């Protein structure tokens, strides 16, 4: 198994050849500065998969190979040939082993990459002295009826939505616009989460329309209150950004926008609605209220001993 950087055109060719659906495989994500595309190849040279990383500076003097910003994970995709369960486990283990050596060989001082929740075998990383840590996201199974989805909400979240509806708030499907952009950016700012305006702009305005799901909640005077932006493909809708107006507030506006997105994703016959990571306590509690399943995914981390001890002072759960 071999891994090496590939060009965007090679990736697109591979995705089309294998009829793979992934909303993150598009120019609005792949042309962001620092994004690197890596191809996975079998011994005979045939491409079998891909994943993405981003090179990012850390603490001014360090460089890291990381999960691309605004992607929940590295989007590792692999077309497995084995059918026999034991052989399949072995083939997937070989993929992970190859990736563990490859990311280390990229020469960055820190490796910190998250993987899709469908990948569970990280033993080759453990054996290669990576730290593998568990992270979580909430996912809603959209195969159940809308009534069941509603029943699964917490009473608090249901009250939020009912109050918004009783107060005659409306939610519209919109095309991302500058109001949405400013709402998202100011929400990040209020939460002290650093964000790159250019990247958010690119995702909002340059993503393919068929992959977008954007909703905005308005009050009775048609003033925008809260918004929701999701990326959608044939399998999954992924919540990416949300925001609310600091000027005109309503406790149910955000929940209504999100609930509308869930309803729309279901209408498009998508199997899963993914809340895209829920590791911050307040955010986790908010997303938990929508009644999804807590789904683990894994992050691998490695650096030199001294750098790890240094970083441990700040991020003990990671280093």
């Amino acid at each position, binding site marked *: 198994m071999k891994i090496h950087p590939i060009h965007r055109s090679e990736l697109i060719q591979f995705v089309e050849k294998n009829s793979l659906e992934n909303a993150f495989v598009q120019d609005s994500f792949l042309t962001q500065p620092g994004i690197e595309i890596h191809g996975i190849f079998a011994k005979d040279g045939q491409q079998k998969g891909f994943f993405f990383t981003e090179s990012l500076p850390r603490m001014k003097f360090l460089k890291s190979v990381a999960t691309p910003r605004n992607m929940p994970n590295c989007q590792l995709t692999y077309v497995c040939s084995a059918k026999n369960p034991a052989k399949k486990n072995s083939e997937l283990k070989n993929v992970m082993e190859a990736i563990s050596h490859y990311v280390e060989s990229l020469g960055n001082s820190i490796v910190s990459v998250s993987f899709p929740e469908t990948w569970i075998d990280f033993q080759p990383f453990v054996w290669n002295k990576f730290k593998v840590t*568990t992270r979580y996201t909430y996912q809603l199974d959209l195969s159940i009826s809308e009534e069941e989805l509603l029943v699964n909400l917490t009473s608090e979240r249901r009250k939020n939505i009912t109050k918004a509806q009783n107060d005659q708030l409306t939610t519209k499907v919109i095309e991302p616009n500058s109001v949405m952009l400013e709402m998202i950016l100011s929400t990040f700012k209020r939460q002290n989460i650093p964000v790159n305006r250019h990247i958010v702009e690119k995702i909002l305005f340059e993503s393919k329309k068929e992959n977008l799901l954007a909703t905005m909640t308005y009050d009775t005077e048609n003033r925008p209150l809260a918004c929701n932006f999701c990326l959608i493909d044939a399998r999954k809708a992924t919540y990416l950004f949300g925001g609310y107006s600091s000027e005109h507030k309503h406790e149910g506006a955000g929940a209504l926008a999100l609930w509308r997105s869930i309803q729309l994703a279901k209408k498009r016959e998508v199997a899963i609605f993914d809340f895209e990571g829920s590791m911050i306590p307040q955010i986790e509690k908010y997303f938990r209220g929508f009644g999804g399943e807590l789904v683990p995914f894994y992050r691998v981390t490695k650096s030199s001993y001294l750098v790890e001890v240094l970083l441990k002072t700040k991020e003990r759960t990671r280093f």
Partner: protein
Amino acid sequence: MQIQPISINELGSLSTSSVFNSKEWISVYDEGLELLGIHNANGELIGCFYLYKRKRVKFLTQLSPPPYTPHCGLFYQNFATNPAKKHGENKKITKAISEYLQRHYKRSIVTLAFPPSLGDTQSFYWNDFKVIPNYTYQLDLAHSNQELSAQMDPKTRNLIKKAEKDGLTVEKNTDMNLVKSIVMQTMNRKGVTVNESILNNILFRFANETNSFSFVVKQDTQVLAITFCVMDNQKCYYLLGGYNKGNSHASAGPLGVYQSIRFAKQNGISIFDFEGSMIPNVESYFRSFGGKLIPYSTINKAPFVIESLLKLSMKQQF
């Protein structure tokens, strides 16, 4: 939610069916085990888990699962039906455990494993524990014998066929001295320290026809390999195994394991668990039986300086 030490007799009020939560199993540990109860707001006992304490470099205590037990035996009843409420309850319990560990064992090394059924470890993460997956392989015994055989790596399947051709036999074993002898030999060869007193308790005090079984593989009258499994109504755990180096045969181990799998299936057990597979050679052997890789969570934490020191030899854990 409150965590408090409980006596072994209090376990009777819990509806756990796991062999690792049975009085008989917990009694295997004469010392070092702290049995803890999880009590709800009304003071009712709704769950349990245990900690095993070992001394490390004279002045440090390490908390871990007891030897020969794959995890800390966490069990609790969650009566919530609404998914969000259920998650809320799970979080309350893990938060209580996490706070108990912080309060009572702040200066200890914590390396605790939880059963695969624990799906939510965020409370530990939020309390600065490192949450790291470990793995086991599990076989779903709902499959037919033919399907179980087809799932195996062809090499392992061929080894089992070869065992039959070479005249190897496999039979039920009730001689626990034989299990002990072969297991001790195997562990010594691998340089693994054996807690003989606990091993004795498992083989000679705990083991009976209802909770465990053993198979021996022979060629003529020579003992080649042995297996020892413990079980409850749902799962069978491959706990101990070994082979006789003086009379080795590549097919003996696979034949013993395969017979153990078939026996578990015959006894109506749904899952055969290989009970942890984190050592590369052992993992590849277990993988060849075609089971599903199942992650389970471990939590790891020690005082900062100790963690930094442990990182020198166990970077993947600290």
